[in-house]
């Protein structure tokens, strides 16, 4: 009996000490692999094409991208950091550098909700220059993150031998994932006015192919409000997968067609990790758990005492 009392006393004192240590919030510093992602969204006007299915009806590529981003962020584990940027013309703009998803969840979702085509100052799109711009922007901002570029691969105006930037000397150690957004059926691109109202469809005549010419600009940089007058004039757009794969190959990136958040997260996980950071591993819950286990062990019937008694009695 004395043995049992002492045994229980030791256990209870141990549990008390563990709880007291736990209450001082102990932690150890560890190096942990940090997943940082930079989501760059194409906000050019071809992303307004409504050829993506969502809840049984077609929605625009941009709206689909927003849904996809929100679902992806929702399913990312805490401590993952996500930044946001937009692409238009031949450049990228950083909305913010990667921030932790769980503690900034609503801010991220709110920003995604507000993404729209009118954020683009110009209607043209040069993805090759955009890739260089994103890389340069992240380097100068000292952001270490894997880049997820959501685009339909639509170049406007279409590239020719003079305007097609050679990416063969690409140097960027970050993991890149090009995410293809759009349907496979050629679809006219809606043209919207400044009030976000559809005024018609883009005409093939307004897609100028001269090098260095900006789409959607008339004389003296005025907005070109011309629209296609007949269906045969429609400038058609679809997800240009062969071109996206070519781009991915040029920069050593991976390509995935966006279909659902689960596949996207798997592809993101497969990207090489780019950052390690020192973080605190909280020990308080571990110590509290041990205190609980110690406490529970005192409930166990006196096994040791019974064994000793049996030995003595032979």
């Amino acid at each position, binding site marked *: 009996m004395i043995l049992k009392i002492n045994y229980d006393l030791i256990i209870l004192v141990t549990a008390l000490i563990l709880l007291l240590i736990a209450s001082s919030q102990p932690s150890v510093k560890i190096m942990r692999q940090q997943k940082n992602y930079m989501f760059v969204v194409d906000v050019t006007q071809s992303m307004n094409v409504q050829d993506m299915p969502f809840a049984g009806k077609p929605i625009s590529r941009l709206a689909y991208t927003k849904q996809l981003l929100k679902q992806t962020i929702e399913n990312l584990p805490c401590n993952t950091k996500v930044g946001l940027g937009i692409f238009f013309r031949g450049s990228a703009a950083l909305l913010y550098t990667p921030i932790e998803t769980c503690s900034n969840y609503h801010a991220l979702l709110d920003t995604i909700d507000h993404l729209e085509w009118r954020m683009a100052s110009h209607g043209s799109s040069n993805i090759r220059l955009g890739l260089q711009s994103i890389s340069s922007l992240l380097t100068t901002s000292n952001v270490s993150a894997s880049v997820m570029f959501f685009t339909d691969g639509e170049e406007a105006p279409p590239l020719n031998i003079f305007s097609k930037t050679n990416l063969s000397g690409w140097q960027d150690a970050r993991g890149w994932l090009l995410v293809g957004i759009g349907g496979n059926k050629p679809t006219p691109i809606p043209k919207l006015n400044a009030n976000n109202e559809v005024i018609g469809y883009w005409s093939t005549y307004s897609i100028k192919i001269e090098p260095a010419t900006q789409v959607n600009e008339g004389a003296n940089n005025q907005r070109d409000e011309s629209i296609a007058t007949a269906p045969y004039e429609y400038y058609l757009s679809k997800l240009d997968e062969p071109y996206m794969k070519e781009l991915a190959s040029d920069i050593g990136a991976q390509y995935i067609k966006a279909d659902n958040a689960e596949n996207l997260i798997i592809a993101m996980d497969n990207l090489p990790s780019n950052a390690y950071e020192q973080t605190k591993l909280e020990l308080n819950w571990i110590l509290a758990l041990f205190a609980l286990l110690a406490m529970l062990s*005192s409930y166990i019937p006196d096994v040791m005492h019974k064994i000793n008694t049996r030995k003595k009695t032979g």
Partner: protein
Amino acid sequence: MQQTDKHAGNVVLIRGAALWILMALLLAWCMVALNFGVTPLKTIFAGKFTRLLQAHIDFLLMSALILGYYGAKVPFPWHVRWAMVIGAFTNSSLFLLQSIFPALDPTMADKVPSVGIWSQVFLIYLFASLITTSYGFGKGAVLIFKSTFKS
């Protein structure tokens, strides 16, 4: 302390329960007096009224628990019996202390100045009470459970 078969060796439980019920009644009268605006009591119980109410209810609950264990008529080792009686008091007294010393109440942290080392002492007391109560009532429950398998 004389322990007879009538009490299954648990006379300390019935004594403890009786005392803590008296304590609960005392606190009930303190609450009545506070509602009548008795100034000395307002000085003594400077914290939240709800803490005093919690202490009163906790004393009653703990007493009821002890009476239940006593009623099971299962003989407990002396350390289990005393852990129950002491734990019942210390657990309830945590609320009582918070009603007397609002600085110990985390919900009043922004309204009253900190009491320094006493907060740490209170924390040790809290954990010790938690362990004592868990040990006494937990072990008592295990022993009652075991007794149901004996012929």
